[in-house]
């Protein structure tokens, strides 16, 4: 434990992002495009105009939640790669419920739909959590299996039982009363109030982790399960509960996407937002505040990448940047060593 680790946990991710952008520009050069032009397009796409900013904020919402999901898991000592599947299940079940809430007033319909989405995500994650607690099954393999199962299951649901219309498989719209009211309407884009809920979730997570006994126990189990058990904390309960909370956050992300953005379940709903959650959690150093900033950053990258396509740089560059950032955060000593050397050279 280094005494200056607080500063490092701030500096490392930022340095990692900058390094990743630099490496990515080399990749861009390799296909014959100009990185400066590309990054200009990126910024324009993310922040150039009210429409763009609205888009970015819409994308931030699920990322905050999946980031919180993965981040909470990390604090508890579990690697929840299953945020993708949990988000899908949350969205799917929320849709099914939302479709049937026709006559119910919004004051009830909205919380109920959200809650059911969270429970679906929690349940899906708890399967992996329970397996880990009872049999020691590694959560990486089991959650990824659950991801694929969720993907195929929902794909089936929108092609057969719930299908509506033609073209991209999709479900019927949810009831009016279950839709989230928009915050602002800019042009054709409604910026949903989901972002408020996401921020509230981040604050609640902070309070739980830092101020409550539950947080004390979750972190203890994550740091040292042996000592935690010795100290009276039930490890199997903890693992299952932590996965469930993590899944609930991811499920909420899915539910909000349905309730606030698409108003139905689209076949292509999650689109990798679950994996983005991993980048967000790592860049945000598993801290709710950091996660909010990291989510905003990732969202800007995603929104901006559409604009990059127009200048000939495929969207996949974002995945490459993400991958490099995560790589550098995993091996953070690389970043620390580079920074220390730079400091030494300067002095």
């Amino acid at each position, binding site marked *: *434990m280094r005494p200056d680790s607080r500063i490092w946990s701030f500096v490392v991710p930022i340095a990692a992002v900058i390094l990743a952008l630099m490496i990515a520009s080399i990749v861009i050069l390799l296909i014959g495009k100009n990185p400066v032009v590309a990054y200009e397009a990126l910024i324009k796409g993310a922040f150039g105009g009210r429409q763009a900013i609205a888009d970015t904020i819409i994308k931030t919402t699920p990322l905050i939640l999946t980031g919180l999901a993965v981040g909470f898991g990390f604090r508890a000592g579990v690697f929840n790669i299953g945020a993708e599947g949990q988000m899908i299940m949350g969205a799917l079940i929320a849709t099914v419920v939302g479709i049937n809430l026709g006559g119910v007033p919004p004051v009830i319909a909205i919380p109920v739909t959200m809650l059911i989405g969270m429970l679906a995500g929690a349940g899906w994650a708890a399967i992996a959590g329970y397996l880990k607690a009872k049999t020691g099954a590694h959560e990486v393999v089991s959650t990824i299996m659950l991801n694929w199962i969720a993907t195929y299951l929902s794909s089936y649901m929108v092609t057969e039982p719930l299908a509506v219309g033609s073209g991209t498989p999709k479900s019927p719209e949810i009831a009016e009363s279950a839709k989230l009211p928009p915050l602002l309407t800019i042009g054709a884009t409604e910026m949903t109030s989901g972002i408020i809920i996401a921020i509230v979730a981040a604050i609640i997570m902070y309070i739980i982790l830092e*101020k*409550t*006994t*539950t*947080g*004390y*126990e979750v*972190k*203890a189990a994550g*740091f*040292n399960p*042996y*000592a*935690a*058990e*010795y*100290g*009276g*904390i*039930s490890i199997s309960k903890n693992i299952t509960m932590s996965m469930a909370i993590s899944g609930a956050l991811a499920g909420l992300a899915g539910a909000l996407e349905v309730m606030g953005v698409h108003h139905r379940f689209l076949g292509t709903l999650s689109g990798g937002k679950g994996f983005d959650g991993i980048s967000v959690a790592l860049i945000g150093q598993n801290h709710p505040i950091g996660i909010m900033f990291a989510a905003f950053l990732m969202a800007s990258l995603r929104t901006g990448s559409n604009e990059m396509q127009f200048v000939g740089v495929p969207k996949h560059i974002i995945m490459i940047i993400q991958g490099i950032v995560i790589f550098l955060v995993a091996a953070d000593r690389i970043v620390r060593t580079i920074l220390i050397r730079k400091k030494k050279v300067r002095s």
Partner: protein
Amino acid sequence: MPPSLGGIELDKEYAVVMKGITKRFPGVLANDHVDLFVEKGEIHAIVGENGAGKTTLMNQLYGLLHPDEGEIYVFGKKVHFKGPREAIEHGIGMVHQHFMLVDNLTVAENVVLGSETKKGFLFDLNEARKVVKDLSEKYGLLVDVDAKIEDIPVGMQQRVEIIKTLYRGAEILILDEPTAVLTPQEAEELFEILRRLKKSGKTIIFISHKLNEVMEISDNVTVMRLGKVTGRLKTSETNPKEIARLMVGRDVVLRVEKESKEPGDVVFEVKDLWVKDNRGLDAVKGVSLKVRRGEIVGIAGVAGNGQTELVEAITGLRKVEKGKIIFDGIDVTGFSPRELRDMGMAHIPEDRLKYGLIVEYPAYYNLILGRHHRFPFSESNFLNKRFILKNAEDLFEEFDIRPRKPEMLGGNFSGGNQQKIVVARELSHEPKFMVISQPTRGLDVGAIEFIHKTILRMRARNVGILLISMELEEIFSLSDRILVIYEGEIMGETRPEETTFEKVGLMMAGHRLEEVER
């Protein structure tokens, strides 16, 4: 008489000479201009407390570490080992305190690993087995060449380590705390082996903090303290008291004063307990014992005889297969750690880093572990920082934990202070019964004294104490009654004033009390 400093005597043949060895680690000067002279064909002891720098010094002789300053000569030739391979080539072999064996490979495979017997590029297992059998017979080191390391007892594991060095042609053997894991009888057997090796011309250096063994087996002693050499003595011309004084720097009380006391009624009882280990084999086989208030019951035994599993079962960390545990009159078999703690049981674990502390948590969080869910530290799931910090301040003061910084992370405290944190926390539960396991492992004499005095204080306050230790000194000086455990069974019960180290040692090696008394 070996020289104290300066020139080497020319009429002696030295196997090893280390001059001016200095080694620094971040924050600590482990070796401070150390000189060591080991004659050819002698048994040389290096003594000192934990942290004196003995192992660091030997690791440099073996090439695992490189000296910052100083020179090393082996058989008169100056050497510069880049790694253990070179040391091995020069005839140096080392048996570490924690064995360097690969659990899932066999004895033969472990011995030849790194210098394998080959047929082309294939590994010749049969040749390996033959070579090991031959060495085993030649030096009288009994081993089972085909057994996996994880299946053989500790004494045999040590013999495998010795054969490893002989296989590589070791002329100089370094043994680091070799008797830490042996019964007194096994230690005797080891000394026989060492005498035999000495007769065949080998030079032996052994590191120890056990003065009686040093007196018994060594020819010369080098005493170290806080990284420096404080004395070079010929064993036949000195005594334990002198060595101890050189080790610690002051006159040492080798045993704490224990007042006599009438114990109260039974507070804790175990009836015919059966517990399995991690591999599903029976580790505790029908153990029964009682502990009274104000009484210290000591369980002696070599590591790996079921103590760990017994403690885990008693403290709720391991499943009880058969039998009963009764605490304060209530059947608590199968109770969780939390329930037991709430009832007044405290546990000082044998591995403080694994079980006792969360190194990433600040000390004030560590000090409430186990009671963190109760008032006043927690109210309706919210932590009360004020009470938590006050509790930490009070405990730091009472137990003299240093540095006085409760916000410092647990992992940054020294070993002795970490143990103080654990002890402080467990005692602050105001327990009726305590399970204390290897409480002074790896601690220096000052910390050991403090812990022992604290334990006796608890005894005076009528707390029932179950003490598990591998250090017979500790068992004898603290216990009112002594039980000996061997392969999961109690071999016998006695009192320190009615028995001897030898008798207890025999029980630790598997003889029952009735046999021993004859």
